[in-house]
């Protein structure tokens, strides 16, 4: 373990390197640029490749190509750039390409407030692409967790052959804290399953087990396409069966592995709590201070934002009469909470966005007093 003083953005870069990421393509954008700066410095030293793309469309597609050529790949961006990447992310879902995409959220829409923290991209991480598509979204609450969780993001992307969106906000991205960086021996790394002969590369009997993925150039004559394809990669843009089977499998690959990918933290006793807070990201730091000394409040911090374990959330919230959802947006996570609670239970949002002002513990406390 090495003790360091890092911003969340820097921690992400170190974590990515330690996770084995060896390819980065990106385009400068506030407040995520420091990830790019660090990767530009660290990757050549680590024997990897860094390239500054001409735009975010290029960046996302470059990392798709690099991933198929066999390297763990990442791109980082913020709101407007994340919007531009959506089509590429959809392609990565369709072609089952392991990638990690970091979105350091700022206040939007459009250019919004480039230097100010927000959490308004939550729904976009889930639903930003057209069509039936599912991926994994992870959200750390601090630079230390950004470091640890980005390694997990790579592991999930490799084991499920899926893009993983890593959702941070400006407070975590630019805030500096003490981070303990692990030594190589202390890190458990997962690698994508390589091909064995005759196994289809785009299909599996058990949808929860992703098909193997060869590197290009190994003689598999791989056919990769963003069009609907059968399990061998051949395009089939007409049949109902092929399309339905494909999108069902891609959905089941994510939701069927929810036990493996759904991470959360609970503070308090669900049996005794009368009130609850549901939060994600940096906002949870204030929430944790707000619940100190309150034994009737349950705090649920979602680390995995997608797929979301609605059953578990329903169970945890089954005894409370009030749920407070603090968000650096006008409210998006609140819809998830409303979905799992009975109509008689009060749900209160603490919503604040713009100006770079955090939600303070006192504001959450006040909402709990309702």
């Amino acid at each position: 373990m090495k003790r360091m003083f890092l911003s969340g953005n820097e921690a992400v870069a170190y974590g990515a390197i330690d996770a084995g990421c060896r390819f980065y393509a990106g385009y400068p954008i506030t407040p995520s640029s420091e990830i790019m700066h660090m990767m530009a410095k660290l990757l050549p030293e680590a024997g990897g490749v860094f390239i500054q793309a001409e735009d975010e469309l290029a960046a996302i597609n470059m990392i798709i190509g690099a991933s198929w050529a066999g390297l763990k790949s990442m791109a980082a961006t913020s709101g407007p750039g994340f919007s531009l990447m959506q089509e590429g992310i959809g392609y990565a879902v369709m072609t089952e390409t392991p990638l990690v995409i970091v979105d350091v959220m700022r206040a939007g829409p459009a250019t919004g407030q480039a230097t100010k923290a927000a959490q308004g991209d939550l729904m976009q991480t889930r639903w930003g692409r057209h069509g039936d598509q599912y991926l994994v979204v992870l959200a750390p609450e601090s630079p230390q967790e950004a470091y640890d969780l980005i390694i997990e993001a790579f592991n999930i992307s490799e084991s499920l052959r899926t893009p993983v969106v890593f959702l941070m906000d400006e407070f975590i991205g630019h805030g500096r804290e003490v981070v303990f960086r692990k030594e190589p021996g202390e890190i458990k790394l997962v690698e994508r399953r390589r091909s064995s002969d005759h196994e289809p590369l785009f299909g599996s009997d058990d949808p929860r087990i992703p098909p193997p993925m060869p590197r290009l150039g190994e003689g598999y004559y791989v056919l990769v396409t963003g069009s609907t394809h059968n399990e061998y990669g051949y395009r089939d843009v007409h049949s109902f069966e092929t399309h339905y089977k494909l999108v069902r499998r891609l959905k089941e690959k994510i939701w069927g592995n929810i036990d493996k990918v759904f991470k959360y933290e609970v503070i308090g006793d669900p049996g005794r709590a009368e009130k609850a807070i549901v939060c994600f990201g940096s906002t949870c730091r204030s929430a944790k201070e707000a619940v100190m000394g309150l034994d009737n409040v349950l705090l649920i911090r979602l680390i995995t934002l997608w797929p979301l374990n609605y059953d578990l959330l329903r169970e945890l919230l089954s005894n409370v009469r009030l749920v407070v959802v603090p968000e650096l947006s006008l409210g998006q996570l609140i819809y998830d909470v409303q979905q799992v609670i009975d109509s008689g239970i009060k749900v209160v949002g603490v919503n604040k966005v713009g100006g770079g002002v955090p939600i303070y513990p006192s504001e959450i406390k006040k909402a709990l007093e309702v």
Partner: protein
Amino acid sequence: MIKHEHLSLKYMRREVLPTAFCPGCYNGIVMNALFQAFEELGIYDLRKYVFVSGIGCSSWIPSPYIKADSLHTLHGRAIPVATGVKLANPELEVIVIGGDGDLASIGGNHLLHAARRNMDLVVIMINNLVYGMTRGQAAPTTPKGMVTPTTPYGNPEEPMDVARLIANTNANYVARWCVSQYLFLKNSFKKVLGEIKRGFRFIEVYAPCTTFVIRRENKTPGQKLKELMNTCIGYEKWEKLPAEERTKHIPTGVFREEDKPGFLDNYKQLIARLKR
């Protein structure tokens, strides 16, 4: 009796033949020229070649017809995907095949920047003058005045001369040939696959769409091919023509030819400097 097989077949996925291209489509000429180049270079197996394409008729050439690794990507994004492949594994020879709409319109920015970087890619742009796959709408290469579904009163815009545009960048090799200039085309393929093996190598193939250009002119692909033999002339000759004659002809030839270090050589140098 000895059965002679067409030379192209060994480079193709037989199980997906015949191709979905329209009868008379010039894509076949381009494919044969490319495969003949491979054969003449003694390259019989394409397992170390990766083909990357976008969306459009010519993007279907590698996916699924060529027996090699292929990535059929989003509309316009073949070059960035190819860039990622090449940088992640420089051992692979990466070839992009796409149309004018795919590479010069929606993907135009990537084309310019890959050329600026002298990225180590071969890019073959088949210019069929329209968006053939979606019924022949105007493309950035459509001649002024041409009637298409999106220019029902005639195209009001000037077309883009893609090869000469790229010739003004940092690319190692830029050429344009008409499908009627088969041997030149094949030799250009041989040049970029066998001789100049680094940097950005761009070959435009002038190949009007049989269905949405040639048929609209009430011609057959064969008649058009004969006509192209007169339309397409060497650019030195073209430059000497009076202005009104120029618009009736397509200047062809090799516009740029160098063998300077590409992006990868420069990147490797950077790494070597770091290690010192």
